[in-house]
């Protein structure tokens, strides 16, 4: 049987439909599904949307500002992003050097003890999403995911942790240990952002798999992806801290 099932969009608004061949029993369950978010116009917009969604829904931090570091879309990747075709010439280029992503950029920013979560892409794309931040910023993000009861997150943020300038603070001071739980939480945040980015990119929602996250401490490493590269680097500012997100991937042969 061919049924028309309702998919709820990420914003919770009704109206997105998908035609699928389903048996009636399965079709009835479709209204229980939270499905794909709306597609983004470009990789930067997709990344911003994914970050904001994760920070607002899971961390209770609605105020995140972003600034561009670099965006490079090589010709091999551009067919994946039809909506960008008119802009591809402007955006095409070559990344400056091979090591600007992640660790090196963290060094340039003067971070002493950066921590990075790295997720691999496989399938249509080959590459990685790297999320880096100083250890205190990692602790802040992870704490917001872990510690306050969900129902209290917003009230805690509102009542306790805002200064006059509107900057929220982590309640702990001094030395802290990034234990397994905090690092696990950091990896999960990266996982949700990378998944959100992929799901917003036309053509990548299927046929592109994510690895489980790997956590790397320090900045003495380089990533060496091969082939033409899509490079998106963004810095996000939250609660007086910064984090760097970098997506660098190569198209696999079957889509070039």
């Amino acid at each position: 049987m061919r049924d028309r099932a309702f998919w709820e969009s990420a914003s919770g608004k009704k109206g997105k439909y998908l035609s699928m061949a389903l048996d009636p029993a399965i079709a009835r369950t479709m209204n229980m599904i939270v499905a794909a978010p709306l597609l983004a116009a470009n990789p930067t917009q997709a990344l911003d949307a994914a970050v904001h969604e994760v920070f607002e829904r899971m961390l209770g931090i609605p105020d995140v500002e972003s600034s561009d570091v670099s965006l490079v879309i090589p010709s091999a990747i551009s067919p994946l992003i039809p909506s960008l075709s008119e802009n591809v010439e402007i955006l095409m280029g070559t990344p400056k050097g091979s090591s600007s992503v992640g660790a090196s950029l963290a060094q340039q920013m003067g971070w002493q003890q950066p921590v990075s979560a790295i997720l691999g892409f496989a399938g249509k794309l080959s590459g990685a999403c790297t999320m880096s931040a100083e250890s205190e910023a990692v602790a802040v993000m992870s704490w917001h995911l872990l510690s306050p009861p969900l129902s209290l997150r917003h009230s805690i943020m509102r009542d306790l942790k805002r200064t006059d300038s509107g900057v929220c603070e982590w309640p702990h001071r001094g030395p802290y240990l990034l234990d397994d739980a905090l690092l696990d939480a950091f990896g999960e945040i990266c996982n949700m952002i990378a998944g959100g980015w992929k799901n917003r990119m036309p053509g990548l929602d299927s046929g592109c798999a994510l690895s489980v996250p790997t956590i790397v401490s320090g900045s003495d490493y380089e990533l060496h992806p091969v082939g033409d590269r899509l490079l998106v680097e963004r810095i996000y500012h939250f609660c007086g801290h910064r984090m760097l997100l970098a997506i660098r991937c190569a198209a696999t042969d079957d889509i070039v």
Partner: protein
Amino acid sequence: MSGIRALIVDDSAVMRKIVERTLRQGGVDMETVAEAGNGEEGLALLRRQTFDLILCDINMPGMDGLEMLQRMQAENLARQVPVVMITTESSESHVRSALMYGAQAYIRKPFTPEQIQERVLPLVTKA
């Protein structure tokens, strides 16, 4: 609603705790919560214990969530138990596969507490 026995399968211990906490705060009375880090561990628990609700991630090291569902069908395990997928994957192919293998709900991460509660509560109430 009497206390239910839940199985949460996710490679992230943090996410397992967040899902459990969200459900408890949403009013799901959970008598016991068993945790598994991947599909193989989940299957091992399903062979030994009875559950009223299964919450399962897809991307996990070792056996992933979809393969776990396939194996559950093949082994006739927990056929009457509602399965809810909670995952970052939201492609049509993933949703279709999950439903085909018996999942009754599919929740994309990041989720809101309301989404979890709205989609899981009816299933456990029915059970």
